């Protein structure tokens, strides 16, 4: 029990634990849409793009970093769309160009005008040091916003994720819904950036959702499981980070990866044993759908 209670005697850890758990829940929640839409690369790219804005704001107006990095992220998303539409490049190539350029700009700004010390590392790999009450308020506000968007736009989001063409033909404003999702995604990355880190946010968008997908065939349950898995990874990862003395983001992602491997193993074994049982009772050519 001391192992769990001892770190809580530090105020910075209490805040870090709260933010990591909430961040994991938020990224797990939104990640369901990102994974099912095949947008994992956008999540990866946006987090890198936002780093450019984060770096610029750290140097010139650190207290406004949420605003500046948020606008930078939205500008990057618009630039990706523009490059993808106006040229014969695919969206993945456009993401590769725009977001890595933005990331490189952030690194250049840090190197030229700032320091490449702790602040730089913290932005890349996450840190629980120096989390302010304002950051916690922002995180909770974005969680409420994301929850409200999903609650009030549940069926449109589901329809546009499953079948955007038919959704459009059925009168759903697909572009508006996708824009709303991009705003939620950008804001989610922004408010979790400090504790998870730029390079690792994408992993926490993907891993809990993939774990949940392996465990259920129901969309509603997938949302719930992914949120719980994300928050559990944040919580456990924070403790391991404290005791191992490594950046919080790395441990949170490693816990997620371990959960993924365990669930993958269990579901593979279960499917394999189910197949054997069915084969015992079925004709030679019977198969079981995965």
């Amino acid at each position, binding site marked *: 029990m001391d192992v769990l209670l001892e770190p809580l005697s530090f105020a910075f850890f209490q805040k870090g634990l709260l933010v990591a758990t909430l961040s994991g829940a938020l990224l797990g929640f939104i990640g369901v849409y990102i994974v099912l839409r095949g947008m994992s690369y956008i999540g990866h790219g946006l987090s890198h793009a936002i780093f450019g804005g984060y770096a610029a704001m750290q140097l010139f107006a650190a207290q406004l970093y949420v605003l500046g990095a948020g606008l930078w992220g939205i500008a990057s998303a618009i630039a990706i769309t523009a490059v993808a539409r106006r040229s014969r490049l695919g969206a993945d190539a456009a993401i590769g160009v725009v977001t890595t350029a933005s990331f490189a700009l952030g690194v250049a700004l840090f190197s030229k005008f700032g320091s490449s010390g702790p602040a730089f590392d913290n932005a890349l790999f996450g840190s629980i040091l120096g989390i302010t009450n304002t950051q916690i308020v922002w995180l909770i506000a974005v969680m409420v916003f994301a929850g409200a968007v999903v609650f009030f736009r549940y069926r449109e989001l589901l*329809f546009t994720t499953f079948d955007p063409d038919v959704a459009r033909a059925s009168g759903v404003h697909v572009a508006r819904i996708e824009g709303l999702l991009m705003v939620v995604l950008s804001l989610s990355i922004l408010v979790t950036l400090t504790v998870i880190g730029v390079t690792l946010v994408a992993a926490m968008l993907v891993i809990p959702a993939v774990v949940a997908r392996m465990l259920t065939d129901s969309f509603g349950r997938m949302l719930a499981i992914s949120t719980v898995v994300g928050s559990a990874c944040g919580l456990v990862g924070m403790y391991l980070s404290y005791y191992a003395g490594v950046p919080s983001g790395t441990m949170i992602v490693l816990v997620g990866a371990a959960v993924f491997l365990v669930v993958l193993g269990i579901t593979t074994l279960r499917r394999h044993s189910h197949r054997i049982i069915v084969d015992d009772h079925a004709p030679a050519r019977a198969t079981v*759908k995965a």
Partner: protein
Amino acid sequence: MTNAAAEPLVTLDDVSAGYQDVLVLHDVNLTVRQTDFTGVVGPSGAGKTTLLRLLLGMLDPVAGSRITRPDLRVAYVPQLETVDWNFPVTVMECVLMARTEHRVWPWPSRAERRDALSVLDRLGIKDLAERHIRELSGGQQQRMFLARALLREPHLLLLDEPTSGVDVNTRHDVLHLLGDLHQDGMGIVLTTHDLNGMAAHLPHLVCVNGHVVAEGSPREVIVPSVLEETFGARLEVLEHLGMPVVVDSAHPLRSAG
């Protein structure tokens, strides 16, 4: 049929359309009414799906005009091959996607569930309502999408290759089902490349190959000259039980003797 049913639902007037710089269809003149049960036939890349997208309003003409009836409610059934069957939804969840308008709560109301079950019952798949969509056969998948479309209570139903990849029995089932819906007063337009199995059974055909080559009844349209312009190959037409039957004579079989 009432006079209102005979009014045009969608009219394409000298319409040209395509994607980016590539024009797929040009100078299309076509009127769709609630009394129509139409098959759009043509080879791959002829513009069949593009024509559906024009009728749906998912694609804007680059030239010409599209006029739709102001209160038009349209439903669309996509090709089965385009769907991610591993997507985590049940049949009921999929069908209820049709009801997105004026929704505040994420969960379905009792009335919505009742309506959805009623449509599923009519299509003979009520018992599958809580199954995952991956567990359905090809015919059941097609019925599920029809159920989703019918829940919108559309004036016009558009289907993209509804019999592609399904067996003969399912094809007959789908065709009869569509026939019943048409009898109930629903306008239907579907694309198909299945001339004998599907097109010859429909009352009205539109042959497409970059433009509308011909339209009319199967007897008017399934003739060698129209088929040659549509498919770019000489196709022989025979008659069997009063129906035109197309024989591919472009590559004649080698004589056994």
